[in-house]
């Protein structure tokens, strides 16, 4: 009797999870090619930017330490994350509407389950891409510098993942109200790359002393800056003041660790909640 009840409960969970799981697996298959392309791209860019310049140009000096090497190599991860997230997540909600696919088949299945499955699938693949980047760079770090991998490199990976989740949630949010996949890709890339920069420099122009803590760009600097041996604890160590003649400009090197993590989580939570609300209200 109890067993039967248990079975029933199990059955219920199974049924509830089934759409999520199948969609997850389907998403993996669906975006597999993109994953391969991005992984190859990630590894090629690591080799292209962090290996060949040192291997082929004898003059070009290696950074002093493995950590320095990682730090310079990780600059590209931000671009990779933005592009990857835009390509993997742009279709998450809006393709269902523009291609009239998923929901047609599932009026009975909760549509959130499909999106959650898709989100997790895309996220898994993007984590794979980022991991491929880190592994490639890590192997090269060992190749040039030997020895174990600097432990802060793992922290950097963790922060990169948080950043990825924040960016992908941002893209998901756009996907929830945009009309077409391509428009979403273009808009989010523009916003994340160009608009962010413009806003940041505007704010810096207007309030030269103000730290742009709200900015994803600013906070993403932590991914590479965490590799600095003595992470700055004092405010004045986190920026550099540039002075040309009478022009003064403050360049922020890094956010604080807690600050960046908080902002990433905030972006994630807010974007996902708003996306969920828009998605609930959205009609075909």
């Amino acid at each position, binding site marked *: 009797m109890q067993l039967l009840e248990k079975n029933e409960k199990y059955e219920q969970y199974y*049924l509830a999870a*089934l*759409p999520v799981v*199948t*969609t997850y697996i*389907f998403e993996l*298959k*669906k975006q597999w090619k993109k994953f391969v392309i991005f992984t190859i791209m990630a590894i090629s860019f690591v080799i292209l930017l962090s290996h060949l310049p040192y291997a082929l140009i004898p003059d070009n000096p290696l950074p002093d330490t493995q950590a320095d090497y990682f730090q310079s190599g990780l600059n590209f991860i931000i671009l990779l994350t933005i592009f990857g997230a835009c390509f993997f997540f742009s279709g998450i909600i809006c*393709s269902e509407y*523009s*291609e*009239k*696919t998923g*929901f*047609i*088949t*599932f*009026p*009975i*299945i*909760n549509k959130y389950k*499909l999106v959650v499955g898709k989100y997790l699938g895309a996220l898994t693949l993007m984590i794979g891409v980022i991991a491929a980047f880190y592994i490639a760079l890590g192997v090269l770090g060992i190749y040039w510098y030997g020895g174990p991998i600097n432990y802060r490199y793992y922290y950097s990976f963790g922060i990169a993942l948080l950043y990825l989740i924040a960016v992908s949630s941002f893209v998901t949010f756009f996907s929830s109200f945009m009309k077409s996949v391509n428009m979403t890709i273009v808009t989010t890339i523009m916003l994340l790359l160009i608009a962010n920069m413009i806003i940041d420099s505007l704010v810096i122009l207007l309030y030269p002393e103000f730290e742009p803590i709200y900015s994803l760009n600013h906070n993403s600097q932590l991914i590479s800056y965490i590799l600095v041996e003595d992470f700055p604890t004092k405010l004045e160590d986190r920026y550099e003041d540039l002075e040309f003649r009478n022009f003064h400009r403050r360049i922020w090197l890094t956010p604080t660790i807690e600050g960046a993590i908080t902002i990433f989580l905030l972006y994630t939570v807010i974007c996902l909640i708003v996306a969920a609300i828009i998605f609930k209200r959205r*009609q*075909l």
Partner: protein
Amino acid sequence: METDKLNRIAEEKSSIGPIEKVGTGLKTVMRLENLTKKFGSFIAVNNINIEVYEGETIGLVGPNGAGKTTTIKMIAKLLRPTSGKILVLNKAGKLQALNGNDKDLVRFGFLIDQPFFYDMTAYQILRYFARSQNYQKEKINSRIDELLKLFKLFKWKHEKVNTFSKGMRQKMGIIQSILVDPQIIILDEPQTGLDPKARIEIRATIRELQKLGKTIFVASHMLHEISEVCDKIALINNGKIVAFDTIENLEKNLKEKELHCQLLYPIPHKDLESTIDRINQKLEHYANHNIEVPTPEHNHSVKYNPEEQNFTIYYDGKRESRGEILEILMSEFKSNNKIISFSQPKTSKLEQIYLEMILEDQPRDGGG
């Protein structure tokens, strides 16, 4: 009985409460109650009431922009109704309003617009659809093969759906909608983009499904495509249900407004135009002003068929008009020709009903 039906049509037009089929013992599987959808101030679907019984095949027929797709999207929960309710049978055998918690409803199959599908192979997509709806794992492959073979898509089982032609994709859409053996199947324009053979196949499929006791709800703007498979037709225009009845009843309704008049000799070619103009003028009074006769050369309610030397006359359907029309015609052809028969047709083109029903309803003015 007949007046009953007419009354019902009248009822629907004035949008009075749900239709009850008292004492038939049939189970309702879906009921649309005062369903209305507005886009801004534009009323796309206006107070629709339809009751669908188990095992019925219902055709939702209307011209482009009538609101068919809008209605179906509301059933699929892709649009929210502005007002009104959609009630659907659940597993417990009761009617349940569509809301957030729909996992207990009976299985649905939908085909809406033209689905584009994901960039995957036919097999992968169908397998995914079946699995996520918890279709028995062991049966999936044979079911997919069976349907692909039925629609002659088996050759392309492992091809990307993106490379499919429009018709092939439409077939995929139909396969997808019946894949998991749903109890209620809702098809929006299933014949679009299909060749004649495939259209016939679809009708055959629908008949098969009928045999299995499925409830089918088909939307189309091509009445003749679905009229022979449907038990009932709901004519929709400008968002309103103009008529909802069996085909025979609808036909009967129209037959009464058509007359055939056979001449002994053909009208000489030189006189043709003037004669028809004259008759038109004389019959002006009796004409059914709602009908626009679909022939380019005549914009009136009299149509002359030169090969068979006969007239088709559309009139207002009144009994006394018939005699008067005959008198007018007799006097017209008294001298140089002869009327050898004057009758009401036994059958009428359903297309005509369709046209008439739609035209009866005054076109809406701009904003609704």
